[in-house]
Structure formats: C-alpha cells, structure tokens
C-alpha cells in the first residue's frame, strides 16, 4: 500500500503583531491524514471560517511549510523541494483550483493563454513541444471538463460564465496530468444552475482519471453528495473524521452535530 499523500502530525503556527505585543495563532494543530495511491477519492474538509482549512490546503500545495510535522507527497517531503525542476515535478502532480474563477484569471488576458503557457511549461520537461502538440493537449483536457478549445480560444474571462470559467480553471489544473487536486471552495462563486455541473465533474474525474481531490467547503450538502471521506475541523483540530455518509448521517462530536443542524434545507419551506 503506497500513499499518494501522507500528512504526518502537522501543525502550523502564525506569529501576529509587532515586537512588543507578539502572539502566536495555531492555525493547524497536529493533523494526520493519508490518501492511498490505489484508491482515488474525494476527501472533503469542512469547518467554519478560521478553522484552518485553507492553511491545511496551502501546506499540501507547498505554499506554506509546516511548523511541526511533515507533508509527504508520493514519499517526498514537500519541505525538501528546492529548485525549479523539482518544483515543477511536484506541481505536475498536485494542482490547485481556486475559489473565485473571476479572480484567478487576469481580466485583461485571454484565458487560453493560461492553458497554453501551462502546457508549454510542463511539456517542456521532455523536449520542446510543438504548437500542435500543445493545442492537442489543451483541447484534450478541455474535453475532459466538457468544453472544447474552440469555445475557449481567444475569450476573455468576462466572456465566459462562472461555471465555464471554473471548468477552464480545472482543465488548466489537469494539463500536467496530476494525481491530486486541491480545490478550495470551488463552487461558492458559481451560479446555482451551474454549481452541480462542477460537483458532478469532480465525481467523474475521480472515476475516469483516477484523480484524488481534496474538496474544501463549508457546504455540507455537496460534501455529502460527492465525497468519499470527510474531516470536520474546528479551530485547527480535526474533531471528527470518517466515511462522509456515515459521519453526516450520524455525527458524534457536538460541533459536527451543530454544523449539521445549522444546514438549511428546502424542507423548511
């Protein structure tokens, strides 16, 4: 059994304030988490604002280094990655999907340029790719997310809907053929009529491409709908974890129960 991601007793402390009034904030406290390579899954991380969800994601992506503990990706300590080549090899396997697709793309830049640049960057690891190879790869990933290069070519971000733009962002993340996507609140800015298309897309990426996804959200209903496992975080600690359906059908920890009770459902109508 090999682990694609092994988060091993990780903590992250931030220092706040100046010289005289320094205090430390423990954003993540001693969290361990494993994802197996052979069993791709969608792992939901839920919790209130300020519970450390995004800090955890930043550490998985190597954007923040843990204060204590280690994050191992495919056996390699993320903290030991140095240099352009190693970094590129790492980012080829772990890719982020951000919350707001309208902020993720420069409004003055055509979105296809991001796709071509990403493809050129990652394909150049094995020789300089030709224009046709790059376009073929971009088109292939766009088809994976239900778009085509013809629909996206030459478009500016404002010319696409939120759902299309978020799918383009996911297509960009898929270009290097990653093993893990880290999606931080990927549907909270997407229109209601298109939200489920993104959530369903995650399910099909897991099933067809064997991709694992860390799905960070505070929407328990979509977490229940799509994820295999769930961890519930409060103030940097994991208060409950397990199979998503079991945990949400029958939460044990008082905080998980409060969280579930706070979910609004159409049945109140």
């Amino acid at each position: 059994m090999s682990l694609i991601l092994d988060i091993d007793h990780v903590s992250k402390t931030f220092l706040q304030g100046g010289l005289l009034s320094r205090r430390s904030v423990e954003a993540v406290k001693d969290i361990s988490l494993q994802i197996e390579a052979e069993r791709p899954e969608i792992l939901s991380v839920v919790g209130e604002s300020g519970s450390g969800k995004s800090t955890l994601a930043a550490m998985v992506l190597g954007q923040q280094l843990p204060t204590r503990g280690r994050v191992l990706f495919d056996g390699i300590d993320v903290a030991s990655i140095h240099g352009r080549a190693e970094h590129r090899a790492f980012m080829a396997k772990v890719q982020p999907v951000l919350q707001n697709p309208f902020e993720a793309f420069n409004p003055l830049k055509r979105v296809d340029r991001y796709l071509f640049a990403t493809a050129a960057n990652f394909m150049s690891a094995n020789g300089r790719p030709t224009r046709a190879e790059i376009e073929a790869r971009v088109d292939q990933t766009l088809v994976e997310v239900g778009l085509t290069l013809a629909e996206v070519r030459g478009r500016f971000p404002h010319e696409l809907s939120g759902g299309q733009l978020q799918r383009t962002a996911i297509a960009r993340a898929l270009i290097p053929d990653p093993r893990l996507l880290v999606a931080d609140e990927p549907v909270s800015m997407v229109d209601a009529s298109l939200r489920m298309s993104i959530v369903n897309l995650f399910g099909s990426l897991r099933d067809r491409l064997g991709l694992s996804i860390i799905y960070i959200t505070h929407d328990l209903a979509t977490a229940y709908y799509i994820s295999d496992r769930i961890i519930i975080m409060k103030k940097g600690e994991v208060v409950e974890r397990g199979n998503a359906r079991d945990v949400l059908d029958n939460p044990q920890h008082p905080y998980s129960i409060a969280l579930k009770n706070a979910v609004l459902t159409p049945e109140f109508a």
Partner: protein
Amino acid sequence: MQTESLLHASDTAVEPMLVVDRLKAYYTTKAFGIDRDIRAVDDISLTVAKGEIYGVAGESSSGKTSLIKTIVGAIRPPLHVVGGNVRFNFGGQAHDVYSLRPDELQAIRWRHLSYIMQGSMNVLNPVRRIRHSFYDFAFNHMGLGRTAFWDKVRDHLKKLDLDPGVLDSYPHQLSGGMRQRTTIALATVCTPEFIVADEPTTALDVIVQRDVLTMLRDIQRDLGSSFLFVTHDMSVHATVSDRVGIVYAGRLVEEADTPTLFRGARHPYTQHLVASLPKIGDTTRRASLSGRPPSLADPPSGCRFHPRCPLAMDICSREVPAMTNLTPRHRVACFAVSGATS
C-alpha cells in the same frame, strides 16, 4: 396580451406596503456613437404586503441588485428608469419614489426604508469606531437628544444579543458574523417599516448564517416590518421568506408562496433550481442545466429562458410569455404552463 394582475395578487383590503408596477430600468452606455442597453430590470411587477418577507431569487447578474437599487431610488447613471413606478405606503401615506424630491427621499430613508447591504466588511468605515457609523446613519433620523439616542442604540443592541461594547470597537476587531449582526442592528435601529436585505448571509459560514437568519426573523416579528429579501441561495429562502419571486435575466418568471414554490413550482427554471439542491441523506444524482446564463446586453428573443429550456416550443423564441395567475398567489410566465391551463 399582458394579463398583469396587481389587484388580484393583493386581494387583501389593506394597501400593500410596496407596489412595483411594470418597472423597467436599463443601463445605457454610449460608445463610438452606438447606444447599448443592458436590460437589467425588464417589466417587473410585484407587491409586498405589510409584515411579509418577500424573497427575490436569481443567479448572479440576473438583475437582482439593479431591481433593489431602482426600488429604493438609489439610481446612478448609467442606470436609469425607462418605465413603470414604485410606490411605498408608509403610515397610510403613499410615496411615489420617482416623484419625490431628493430631500423627501432622504427623509424616508432609514426612518421608514432601510437597507442591509451585501458584504458587511465593506459597509463599516474601517478607520472609525462603530459608534460613528451609528451616529452618521441614524442620529438625524431619530429626532432624539444625544443621551436619549445612545440609550436607544444600547437598548437595541441588547435586544439583538449584541454587547453594547461593540460601539467602541473598530470593524476589524469583530468577526464576520458580529460585523454582519452589527450592520443589521444599524439598519433596524430606527424601527423602519420596510427593510431591504441584499445577500445578508452570503459571506458567512453555516452556523453564523443560521444565527443571522434567526435574528432577522425575530426583528421582523418584533417590528412587524416588511422585508424584501434578496439571495441566490434557495435554502435560505426556504427558511425565511413567506413568498418568493424568481428572477431570470431581468424578468420575473415565477412567484408563489414559499411552500408552493418548493413543492409545486411550474416554471422549468424554478423546477430546476429546486431539484438541483443537494440534501444530506439523499444521494440521487443532481443534474445541472446546460448552456449559460444569458447576457443582459443581448438577451435571447421571446422567453429569455428558451435556449436552455427542456420544454421550449416554437412560440417561446418569438413571443414573451405573460405572467398568468394559476391561483391568486401563484403567478408564472411560461407558455408551456399557461397553454396547459387555458
């Protein structure tokens, strides 16, 4: 064949608190000699009764915020009203928003008509203590002396379970939920008769959202105010709204009592919105609509939903469906529905 029915919709003898009649408001831009109209509010009619929470639902850029702006008279170019009118009924006196002088409108605002804005973090002045915001917003409208005014503010905060100490805090010292509750307190301190709430819980997490919604319902019960409650989140409407109107691309497509809307929606777009909501305890597959929300600069002809509609017929792309009453409190604009009932 406009069978608009404001009189039927409000079959009570009491004059409704707000009447919006055939309201049209466009953003007009002129560039290179070409005029472009963004039809953000296109022929919307609705009424809100006294003590009612009227919910407005729709996607981003469907014209929800433009609708609110035109209703409260906060109209700045390039937005301008093309037709229709808006009448409030405060204290048995009718006020036509578009024929009021600016100072008359100013006198109504906050005293009778108040506004809970989207994104509490952007409303409060970040470099001044919160007491200054209360003073700036409310003091002139209350007609009280300073001591009496601050006593009233403190009482109001206590009633809403807020520590009066927040008055001496800066906005960044409060959490998002506290800030949002403070802006709600600010909007309700003059006990207004009509409150407009624009996405008041969107940036909050679930537990805080629940608290804020409970607080809004309590205020509504205590003051007996009418609410115009705007959010894209259908489960929030299920919890707070008495009646919900669905806006699609600048037009009202369906309106009904909340239970009717969630259990017996007739417009295909509403049906989709309700059916696509995921629920804990239910793992059946939720579909998503094909296509994309239309651009308001160049909306589809006829019914604006027809390119994405599973029931689209020939007539849908040619003519605009009129609002038809299915029951006195359930209206829908769809040829597939009105054809079936006539």
